[in-house]
Structure formats: C-alpha cells, structure tokens
C-alpha cells in the first residue's frame, strides 16, 4: 500500500549514512579520545576507537531500523486504511477501557491484598495519574507549556508537612489548605509569566520549579534544608488513626491489626483524590471556563476578539492545575512521612509532562494509560538495571513514531446537538504559549 510511495533503499541508506557521519563527528572527541590529568598534572590521553566504532555502528543501524519502522507505519499524517469492522471493534474496546480500568483499580487492594509491592506500585501510579490529570488542565486544555509543575507538588507537600508538624493540624484540614496554597502560588507565578508565550513560558516555569526547590533547600530554619521534614503525621480515617493502639481502627472494628490496612487506606485515598481531579476537570471542560481554556489553546487572538479575558483565563488554568498538584503533594507527604527537596527535582516535572504528552494532550483516559505505562513500565524493566533507561527511551521513541499525538489521539466535544463524535487530533491545536 505504501511501497509505491515509500523512498527506496538508497534513501534509507543515505539517511543512515548522514546520521552515522554526524555521530562520528560528535562522538570522536566525546568518546573517541579520553583525556585526563596525569599524576604530575600533565595531560594524558588515550583513544577508544573501538567504543567509537560501536556507537557509530549503533547509530547507523538504529537509523535504518527507525526509517524502516516509519515506512511500515506510514509517514505521519497518512490515513491508514483500516477495515471498518476493525475500527468499530476498536472503538467499542476503547469505550470499555475506562470502566474496566476503573473497576479493576477499585479491586486492586482486594486482589493483591497480600502483595505489598503491587499495592505500593498502585499508589505510585495513581499519584502520577493525579499529577498528570492536574497538569493536563494547564498543558492539554489551555495549551500552556509548564515545565515547573513539580513546584506546586512541592508547595502542597511542604504545606502539609509544615502545618502538621508545627501546628498539629490534621490531614483533612491541611489537604484543602495545601490545595489553596498551591493555587495561590500558581496565581502568583502566573501574573508575571503568562504574558510570555511558548518557549519563554516554558523556560520561566522551569526556572520557577528550580527556584522553589532551591528555597526549600536553603531556607534551613523553616524547611529543614536538605534534611527535609521528618515525622510527618500519617493520615487518619477522619480522626481514627490506623495504628495498633487501643484507639486505632483495628481495635475499634475488633479485627487484628495489620500494617496493610494503612496501605489500603492510602490506596483508596489517592484513588479518591485522583477521581476528584478527574471529575472536576470533566465538569470544568463543559463549563464556559473550560471551553475558554480550550479555545485559548486553539486561537488566542480569536478569544480576545470574542471578549474573553485571556489573562484571567490562563490564570485560572494555572491555578486549577496547581491546586491538583498541591493536593497530590499533601498526599505524597503523608504517605512518605518524610520529605526533602530531593523529591522535587526537574525530573518529576519532566516525567509528568511526558505522561501528559504521551497520553495525548487533553485526554483524561490517555493520561491515565500513559501514567500506567510510564510508571508501571519503568518498574517492569527494573530487572534490566542500567539498560532500563535505554530500553525505556527506545519504547518512548517508538511510541512517538507510531502515535505522534499520544495514545488517545482525538478530542471529545464538550457539547453536541445530535452526534457525539470525536474530533481527529490533526485539527486540534497544541497551543503556543
């Protein structure tokens, strides 16, 4: 089907050759020659042409493989002819995915009650699902590229940690406070930043994320600096602690105490928080504010011509996303019992952003699937040790070739008259600022 249009062997070969050449130039000094200060301070160097040759060969081979795969899947934007039965079966499957996934998630603590590892992993995945859904408001809906999302996660976590350890406030009071504080910081950051667009916005948010981390690291007297905050109270079931004591839940229910109770409780807690995020987002999308976010992503100039205050619209998106990040942060703090600035590096922001992009910008189900794939997949490759990142990176590259617009590549309309039909992602803009 595509062979007639596909570039021939010569083209692939040429492309691979160019890639290899670039790799040769780049790596010849980086890998080919190794320099070091000798014992007397003089320069010693030795060559590693074997390693260099291997790298260049890998690039050459990889380039051919990628090109072949690309032809196999067709170039980006081609309409692949899929039989209608397959399409309808797929769409039926797609409609079932969400409810099945949800039911399964509810049952996880029942099925895997005795497998602590799975439960912990489930909690981790759900935390990232929630973070992904939160960032999705900013990046996926409003089209604002935020590279410093972890800052709000940190604000939420430290809000709870400090309020609880210093003032003894309970988790259920601190949780909304953490959300409000994070939203407040979102607005504070948003004011000066949101007149910037595209790359500039990305860089400033990135810097903001780093600044927050550095403040946490250096404001020793309040945050404890690199030592972090320890002894953060565990959550209670609305006042009833999940502890082995006489006033604990186990004693009250007259069942034998088990530490798993708390894990299961945490699991359902983060599930509830994530579902709250999802519910609010879905609702907001159908309200004028949510539609304005998406319109902003599509065309900011047109929005202004329609009398939409783009600044406040962006601010609300930023604040909403930040609030969810803050809630997730408070959960993170209570789960860990200990937090330090190390947990809030740029790596986290990048991971959450990757989840949103991989999920298909704006799609709730896509983000959940992506979080599952990213966090779960990462654990799956744990056995590969040092090659884990490599395999993972490769999987990402392949996925992006196969689905450049993310796992769920279409947009569901927020309102319809007759037919609720999905909109192809080719039409949906990604936003610019």
């Amino acid at each position, binding site marked *: 089907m595509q062979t007639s249009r596909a570039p021939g062997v010569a083209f692939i070969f040429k492309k691979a050759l160019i890639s290899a050449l670039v790799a040769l130039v780049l790596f010849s000094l980086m890998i080919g020659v190794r320099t070091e200060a000798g014992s007397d301070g003089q320069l010693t160097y030795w060559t590693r042409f074997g390693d260099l040759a291997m790298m260049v060969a890998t690039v050459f081979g990889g380039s051919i493989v990628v090109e072949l795969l690309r032809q196999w899947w067709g170039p980006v934007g081609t309409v692949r002819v899929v039989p209608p039965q397959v399409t309808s079966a797929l769409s039926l499957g797609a409609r079932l995915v969400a409810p099945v996934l949800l039911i399964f998630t509810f049952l996880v603590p029942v099925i895997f009650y005795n497998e602590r590892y799975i439960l912990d992993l489930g909690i981790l995945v759900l935390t990232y699902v929630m973070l992904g859904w939160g960032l999705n408001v900013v990046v996926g809906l409003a089209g604002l590229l935020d590279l410093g999302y972890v800052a709000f996660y940190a604000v939420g976590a430290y809000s709870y940690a400090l309020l609880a350890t210093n003032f003894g406030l309970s988790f259920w009071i601190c949780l909304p406070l953490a959300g409000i504080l994070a939203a407040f910081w979102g607005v504070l950051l948003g004011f000066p930043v949101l007149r910037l667009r595209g790359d500039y916005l990305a860089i400033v948010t990135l810097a903001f994320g780093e600044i927050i981390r550095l403040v946490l690291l250096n404001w020793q007297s309040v945050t404890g600096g690199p030592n972090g905050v320890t002894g953060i109270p565990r959550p209670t079931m609305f006042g009833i602690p999940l502890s082995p004591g006489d006033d604990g839940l186990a004693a009250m229910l007259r069942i034998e105490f088990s530490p798993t109770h708390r894990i299961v409780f945490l699991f359902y807690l983060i599930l509830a928080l994530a579902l709250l995020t999802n519910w609010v987002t879905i609702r907001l999308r159908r309200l004028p*504010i949510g539609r304005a976010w998406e319109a902003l992503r599509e065309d900011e100039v047109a929005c202004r*011509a329609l009398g939409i205050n783009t600044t406040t619209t962006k601010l609300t998106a930023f604040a909403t996303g930040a609030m969810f990040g803050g809630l997730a942060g408070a959960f993170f703090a209570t789960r860990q019992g200990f937090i330090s600035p190390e947990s809030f590096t740029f790596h986290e922001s990048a991971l959450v952003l990757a989840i949103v992009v991989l999920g298909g910008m704006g799609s709730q189900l896509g983000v959940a699937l992506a979080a599952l794939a990213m966090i779960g997949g990462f654990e799956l490759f744990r056995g590969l040790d040092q090659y884990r990142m490599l395999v993972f990176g490769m999987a990402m590259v392949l996925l992006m070739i196969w689905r450049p617009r993310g796992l769920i590549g279409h947009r569901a*309309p927020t309102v319809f*008259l007759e037919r609720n039909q999905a*909109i192809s992602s080719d*039409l949906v803009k990604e936003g610019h600022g």
Partner: protein
Amino acid sequence: MSADHILSVDHLSMRFGGIVAVNDLSFGAERRKITALIGPNGAGKTTVFNCITGFYKPTSGSMRLAHDDGRNIQLERLNDFRISKQAKVARTFQNIRLFPGMTALENLMVAQHNALMRASGLTLLGLIGAPSWRVAEKAAIDLARTWLERIGLLDRADDAAGNLPYGDQRRLEIARAMCTEPALLCLDEPAAGLNARESASLSELLLAIRANQGTSILLIEHDMSVVMEISDHVVVMDYGVKIAEGTPQHVRDDPKVIAAYLGADEEEAIAVMESGT
C-alpha cells in the same frame, strides 16, 4: 454631522515605524446601516479594523461608539477583550480564525463566554450543576442552534470547524461574532474566496442580520458585487487616506476611485466600473 452614527472615527492615524498605514482618517458608520470600507490592497483597511477592535493602539485620533441607550464609549481607551465585552464590537478576520479543533456548536458556545460566565456564577454554580445554570446553558445552546440554522449549518453542528468547507467556515465565523450579540459587526473580507452563489447567500445573510438584529455592519470587501448590492454607504481608502465616500452609485462614478483601482489592479477597477452597468 446630522446622521446618526454608531461609530465615529476622527483623525485616526496609525504608524508602524516609517510606514503610515492610516493617515488622518475620519469617517462614520451609521446605525443599523451597512457601511463598506473599500480600497486597493495595502490601503490600510485591516489596520483600521485592528484599531477599532483594539488589536492596535492608534498613534493618534479617536474612535467613538454611541450605543442605542446613549452610552458613549471611546474605543481607543479600551484594550483588546474589553472592546468586545463592554463596547459590543465584534469582528471577523481576513484569514479565518475559528477554533478548528472544536465543533461548530462549540465555537458558538465559546462566543457566549461572558454571558455564560455570569450565568455559571463564575463557574461555582456550574460546578454544582445549579438549575439556573442549566437553564442558561440550554438558552445558549438554543441561540447557537438558531444561528447554525440561519447559516445553513445545522446538520454540521457536531463537526469540527476545521473540517468545514471554506465558505461554511466564513459563515460560521460571522455567526460566532453574532453570538456575542454585538452592536457593531466588523467583517474583514467575508466574501473572499467564495463563489458567486455563496457570495449571494452571504449578501442575503448580512441584509437579514441588519434587518432582524438591528446590528450595524462595517464591511471590508473586495467583491464589488457584494459591496454595490448591500452597502448603504461606501468609504474608499488609498494609501491610508480617505479618497472618496458616499453612496455606492456615487463612489462608483468617482474618477479618483477608478484611478486608485486602476493604479492598483486593473481587474478590480473594471469590476468597479462594470458592476454598475
């Protein structure tokens, strides 16, 4: 001036560095009438629109909008979104600016943002699904449906705007502007790229808007058949200055206008002359 002007532009100038795109331009747009702004390419028409709708801050001059209720608004003092929100001036763009990834219906819902924002109690009432919000939302959908029907796109309400044919997109953009319930509607070349039949139906639509909604229309247009057929008053610009104004008949016979068009583009000049005969 004795005429009842909804928009009065006074000594408007707009400079971009050394370029004087609009030079001391004065004209008025009459209430409930269709005023056409014509002129060869690069005359400065779109720049005038951008000044009126707040996308550019004019170098000098004033623009006054006189509402039916007697309110007077100086447009040069408001910035971007407030012109649509408070002064009730809506516009379309020379190169269509719909929200391509949203459906036709959604496009019209976004246009009702400010009214719906109020109805949703700044989102709070909407979030809890208050009955008053539901009523307002239904009314908004009904308004959108009415406009879709009027532009003949009811059956494509749930299609992505970016998937619609060019002519339909042009009409949808007009409907979207009308959903903001404007007092003055500014259309930048609405007939560009339309065939003769589509142009005719566009003329009909604009006449109906003027008759039914009582909206005043300011129109930039190169398609002389449309201009001659529907406009009540024509203002001709060239190199940023007004070179003529009057009724379509009057303007068409003005030698200065013919010369401007001849200088710019022979075909258009012929179109101007032929459209009267």
